């Protein structure tokens, strides 16, 4: 009975908790290997087979999702004739769906016309499917993740400025 | 309307207990005397329990009034200051229990 009490007390010690937790989680993970894993091929936002676009000499590979651009910089919103292809969960909730996917910045257009191998850069600058997902259809996620970064930074910089760096005391 | 009646029951029970407590403090000054039986309390308890348990048998007044009054009277005894009213309560319960059983057997 006494040893039981000691075990119970040990379990309440903060130092042991992460280790207990990781042990339990590790066991769960390894048990997960028994589960039959298979990828359901009906997914949202599917992408072409890896390397197929770059092998087809597509200058926008690997993020070409269609759409035709007219870069006239008119602020009336008519930038394109044809939006890109997106398979969103609720297309009806996004009025301008596909437009970001199809959009390429003027600089991006000039890059596209000069070289075949800069598709990633073109589509990481404003436009592209990832931007559409990150800022538009799943923009709320990005609100959170940038807030997470901000909060972590607030915490870290507060701790750093007040404890770790201690600039005031030193100078 | 059911719930209103239950509320009335509970209220009469609670008020009965409070009054019982106040009265018994007036009547008995010394704490915790448990030997002798108080006749008044006994009578109240018997009447209360009879009204409470045998309310079907009493045709004169509506059932909920008799239960309300019965609860009130029982609560008077139940709520007496600690040490008092215990035997009265039990005796009242037994008496009315007997009446209830005989009533059930006879009717």
């Amino acid at each position, binding site marked *: 009975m006494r040893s039981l009490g000691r075990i119970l007390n040990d379990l309440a010690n903060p130092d042991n908790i992460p280790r207990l937790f990781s042990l339990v989680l590790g066991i769960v993970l390894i048990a997960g290997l028994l589960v039959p894993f298979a990828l359901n091929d009906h997914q949202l936002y599917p992408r072409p087979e890896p390397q197929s676009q*770059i092998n087809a000499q597509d200058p926008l*590979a*690997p993020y070409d999702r269609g759409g035709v651009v007219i870069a006239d910089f008119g602020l009336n919103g008519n930038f394109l004739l044809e939006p890109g292809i997106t398979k969103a969960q609720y297309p009806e909730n996004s009025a301008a769906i596909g437009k970001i996917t199809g959009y390429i910045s003027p600089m991006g257009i000039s890059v596209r016309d000069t070289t*075949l*191998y*800069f*598709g*990633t*850069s073109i589509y990481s600058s404003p436009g592209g499917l990832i931007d559409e997902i990150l800022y538009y259809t799943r923009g709320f996620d990005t609100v959170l993740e940038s807030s997470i970064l901000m909060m972590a930074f607030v915490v870290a910089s507060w701790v750093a400025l007040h404890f770790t760096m201690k600039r005031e005391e030193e100078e | 309307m059911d719930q209103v009646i239950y509320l009335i029951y509970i209220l009469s029970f609670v008020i009965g207990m409070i009054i019982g407590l106040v009265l018994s403090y007036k009547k008995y000054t010394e704490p915790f005397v448990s030997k002798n039986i108080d006749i008044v309390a006994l009578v109240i308890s018997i009447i209360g329990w009879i009204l409470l348990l045998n309310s079907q048998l009493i045709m004169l007044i509506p059932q909920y009034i008799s239960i309300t009054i019965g609860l009130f009277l029982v609560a008077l005894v139940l709520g007496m200051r600690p040490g008092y009213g215990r035997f009265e309560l039990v005796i009242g319960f037994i008496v009315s229990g007997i009446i209830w059983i005989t009533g059930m057997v006879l009717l």
Partner: protein
Amino acid sequence: MAFLDFINISTVSAAVSLIGAAGIILLPKPVDKVIMFTLLEGGFLGMIVAAKYLDVAVAAAILDPISTVILLIAVIKINDVRKEKLKAQEEMNIA
């Protein structure tokens, strides 16, 4: 000649990175490890080039030396710190 077909940029860079990884893991001295780390990164760069994503390769090529430099600085610094500490201990022992 089918055997030689296997020698393309992917497999070579895979081999390079595996050697680099083995080096990082097995070599005892941190500075050696940093050198092997560049080998590993080189293999990885080769893979990106094999995949024809030149912009990624450019960015990775710039970021790799930086990470090597940061690792180097840290290793030098920590060696410094340890030396200081040893010296301080010896002084303590002499005194």
